[in-house]
Structure formats: C-alpha cells, structure tokens
C-alpha cells in the first residue's frame, strides 16, 4: 500500500473487527457479534463484486444471485442430511462459479447498459426460480437445521468461533485479492476497464479474462452466501432479490470502487446505517434512497479515497 494513512486504517480496522467479540462478551451484548459478523459476510461479497465492478468496470447488477446460490448450496444438502461444511461450502463456490460462467458467457457479449440490464434480468430469473420451487420452501424459505459441520475441528454453533472463521475468510480474501490485483491477471482486468479496444489491439483476448474474473467474483459471492445462511440459520429467495444486489453495489461504491479495502468500509457504514436508521423508523429507506442519490452525485469516489493516499502509480 502506498499510503501510511491507509495502511494504518486497514490494520486498525481489522484489529477492531478482531476485538469485537471481546467487547461483546465483556458488555454482554451478543447482538454486536451478530451484527459485525453480518457486516463481514457482506464485506466478503462486496470485495468479490469490487473485483469485477471496481477493477473491471463490469457493472453486474445481479450479484445477489450468487449469494442465493451459495445459500441454497448449504441449505438443500443440509435438508437431505449432508451437513459437512467442506462439502457444502465447496459446492456453494462451485455452483455459483458455474452460474457465473453461464451468465457471464452470455452477458459479457454486451457492454454498458445492456450488460447492466442483462445481469439484472438473469439474477431476477434465478429469484423467480427460487420462489417457484415448492419443495424448497418456495417464497417462505427454508430453515437450516444445523450450521455447517466441520467434523469437530471447528464448531460453528459457537458464535465466537464462527465469528473468527468469518474474519479469517475476510482477511484471506483481502490478502489473495491484493496479490491478484497486482498480478498479470489483475493488470489485464484493470487495463481492459481503462481501454478495452487497445487491449485487443495489442493482442489480449479480453473476453476470457473478464469471464474468469466474473466467475471468481461469483464464487466469492457463493461463499458469502454459504456464510450468510449459516449466520441466519434461515434462507429465503429474497436473498437473491435484485434490491439485495443493489445493496451490495452501494457498499462497493460507498466504500470506494476499485480499492479492494474500500468495500469493507462500505459494508460497515451501510449496514451500521441501516441498523441505526431502522431503529428510528420502519420507513428508513425513505432516507436511504435520497442519501444514496447524494452519495452518487457528490461523493463518487467513496470513503476509502477520502483517506490521504497516493493514487498515481497504482493505476
């Protein structure tokens, strides 16, 4: 990282997250555990989305669909007695990655507005699919009997353990993401966002790289979904509703597109705000809506870029 302020903020933030369970235990407020776990899970989804949205310039409005798939990939096997976390979570990432492959293969043939609309449409299609399958709860959803089992190595039913597992996933994701963004692959994705015709002119078949990024983001979304359903021990198709996609996008934008760490901040702010506002009034979205408009109009670069830091050489 090129900036001390940002590096410090990141470290402080992660440490802070690490200490939440301690604070929660001391203050006897397990609610905080839940809240911040939820925040981190969405942060994971947001970081995944940032890869394609912020770095790749692909405005995918259907990201919630992958969370949904990941969630179902945990709930359905559990319903039939398969409770191994290893199986479920791997399945979650594989299925959502596959879905991303299929959706991306078609959607990436367009760009701009069409792309936005199409990803939205496909995600909504999956939502309708989820609603109509009666066996799996239709629009009432499904309950998760037990959280994913990891054969005694890790016990997710313990809220604190689960918390640190999520934190671990987030940190790992950030670390891997950091490497990816600066490696050849990341450079291609970022350059394609900057000037795709040029990329093709110098010899990059950009389609395959964008598709790969799309799949990676989808798989990460699936993992987030698996975590989410473990968190809530419940699952409804509404997880896939397009407004959820919008929420995740807002987290990325609010935090800072293309910054990798910004979306984490975005998730924190967004969900905290949601929490605070909904305590005031059931109609909190009336405030959130215009707020969002204002952010887009005036604070476009996101919160992370408000921190002093060299933008230049990183591209």
């Amino acid at each position, binding site marked *: 990282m090129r900036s001390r302020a940002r590096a410090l903020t990141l470290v402080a933030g992660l440490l802070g997250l690490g200490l939440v369970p301690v604070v929660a235990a001391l203050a006897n407020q397990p609610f905080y555990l839940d809240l911040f776990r939820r925040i981190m899970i969405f942060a994971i989804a947001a970081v995944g989305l940032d890869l394609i949205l912020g770095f790749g310039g692909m405005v995918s409005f259907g990201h919630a669909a992958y969370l949904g798939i990941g969630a179902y990939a945990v709930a359905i096997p559990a319903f039939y007695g398969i409770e191994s976390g290893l199986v479920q979570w791997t399945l979650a990432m594989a299925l959502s990655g596959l879905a991303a492959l299929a959706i991306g293969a078609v959607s990436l043939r367009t760009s701009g507005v069409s792309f936005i609309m199409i990803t939205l449409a496909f995600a909504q299609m999956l939502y309708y699919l989820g609603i109509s399958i009666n066996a799996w709860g239709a629009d009432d959803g499904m309950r998760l009997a037990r959280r994913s089992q990891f054969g005694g190595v890790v016990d997710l039913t313990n809220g604190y353990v689960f918390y640190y597992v999520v934190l671990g996933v987030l940190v790992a994701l950030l670390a891997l993401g950091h490497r990816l963004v600066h490696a*050849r692959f990341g450079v291609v994705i970022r350059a394609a966002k900057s000037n795709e015709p040029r990329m093709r002119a110098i*010899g990059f078949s950009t389609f395959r790289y964008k598709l790969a990024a799309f799949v990676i983001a989808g798989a990460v979304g699936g993992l987030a979904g698996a975590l989410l359903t473990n968190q809530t021990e419940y699952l409804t198709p509404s997880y896939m509703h397009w407004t959820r996609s919008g929420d995740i996008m807002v987290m990325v934008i609010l935090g800072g597109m293309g910054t990798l760490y910004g979306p984490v901040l975005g998730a924190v702010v967004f969900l905290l705000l949601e929490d605070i506002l909904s305590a005031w009034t059931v109609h909190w979205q009336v405030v959130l809506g215009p707020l969002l408009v204002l952010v887009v109009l005036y604070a476009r670069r996101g919160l992370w870029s408000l921190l002093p830091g060299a933008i230049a*050489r990183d591209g």
Partner: protein
Amino acid sequence: MAEPLLAVRGLTKRFGGLVATDGVDLDVAEGETLAIIGPNGAGKTTLIGQLSGDLAPDAGTIRFAGEDVTGLPGPTRSRRGLARSFQITSIFPEFTALDNVALSVQAHAGHSFRFWTPARAERALREPARATLEQVGLGDRADVLAGTLAHGEQRQLEVAMALATRPRLLLLDEPVAGMGADESQRMVHLLRALRGRHTIVLVEHDMDVVFALADRISVMVYGRVIASGAPEVIRANAEVRRAYLGEEISA
C-alpha cells in the same frame, strides 16, 4: 517474387448506404513502407480497421504472412505479428508509460492467468518495455502517468505500444496527427530507423512525412485505390492531382 507479406483483395465495407472501402486491392512486400494517402473520408481508417481486425469486411480477403486472416479476430492477428497504432490516441491514461508498454509485452509473453506474482516485478516484461521506450525516445518519461504526457509524447507511446508486440507489420494510422513541426521530425526519425526491419503501412495526411518515409504510395479516393506506385510517379499523376485539388503537393 516472394509472396507479399500482406495481400489484400477486393476488400469492401459498407455502412448503411455508404461504401467506405470499395474493392480495395493492396500488396505490401516484406520490409517495405507503403503510405496510403487520400482526402478525408476516403476510407483510409476503415481500411486500417479491417486490416487490424476491428471491423469485419463485407467482402474480400486479407492474407498475412501466407495465411488467410480475414476471419481472425483482432487479438489473434496481433499475436500473428500485425500491430497497429490509432489515429486518435488510445492508451491507458491511468497507468505509467512503462506500464503501458509492459502491457504490450505481456500480451505476447504467454497467458495472463497468473494470480500471484506482481506483474511489476516481472523483469521479462519490464526490461523489453523499457528498451522500447528508449527506442522511441521516451526513456526518461517511463514513470510518468500516460495521461499526463504531452500530446506528441503520447503519439510516441502509441508507436511504442505497437512496437513492443514485436510485430512483422506495423499499421500506423496518422502517427504525426496533431503534432508540431519538431515533434513530427522526431517521429519521422524514429520511423526511418524502423524501415527495413519492420514492414510498415502508413496512413498519413502530412505529405512531407509521406515522401520522407514511403517506398511506395497508394492513393485512396471514395474507398477505391486510384493509383499506386513509387512516390515520384504518384507525384506526377494527373488524376491524383485532381483528387487533391486545393491541397498542396510539394512539387
């Protein structure tokens, strides 16, 4: 005579009612520099677009290095050794000049499904990039953000990016567009040095540049090649003079 490096036959492209290129035939021998001139709207950029793979022709064939490339997409042609520079500067403004050229190198240095090693650390990418920047005269501007380079320097960067792909054929679309006299001179020097080692197809308006560089000239008007040959021949051609009525051809 050996088969030309680039052989174009009957290349035609229509946009709605407008025929941009109308049955164009061209041959470019290896190592020669062909300049394509013509009034605005003659279809020169459309021609370049079809040669580079950005535009699909409605009719005609393109053979490059003995292979029919008409159906191949742009990136594949680039990998075969066909490079282009753009008339309207097309670079990666948020990256440094060195990054820009390194990208060109990267495109031809194996696949980019590498997720771990930082690209900046790969010497196999950085060294050739630096060398190419030196070659075009931008060696000391390597770490400047491409978007902040002067216009002339950006045009040089355009050429560098094409060069770094180690092409056999360079398609240069108005390389000195928008440049002042000094900058044009420098570009001409640079392109002169490339002559012979690379085959060059050059679209240009600036006649001084054309006559300084071209081995042969083809003249396009309304999408057709109306004359083709050595510079002196073209200079003297009555039809060409007519087409350029009002424009200066220095006698």
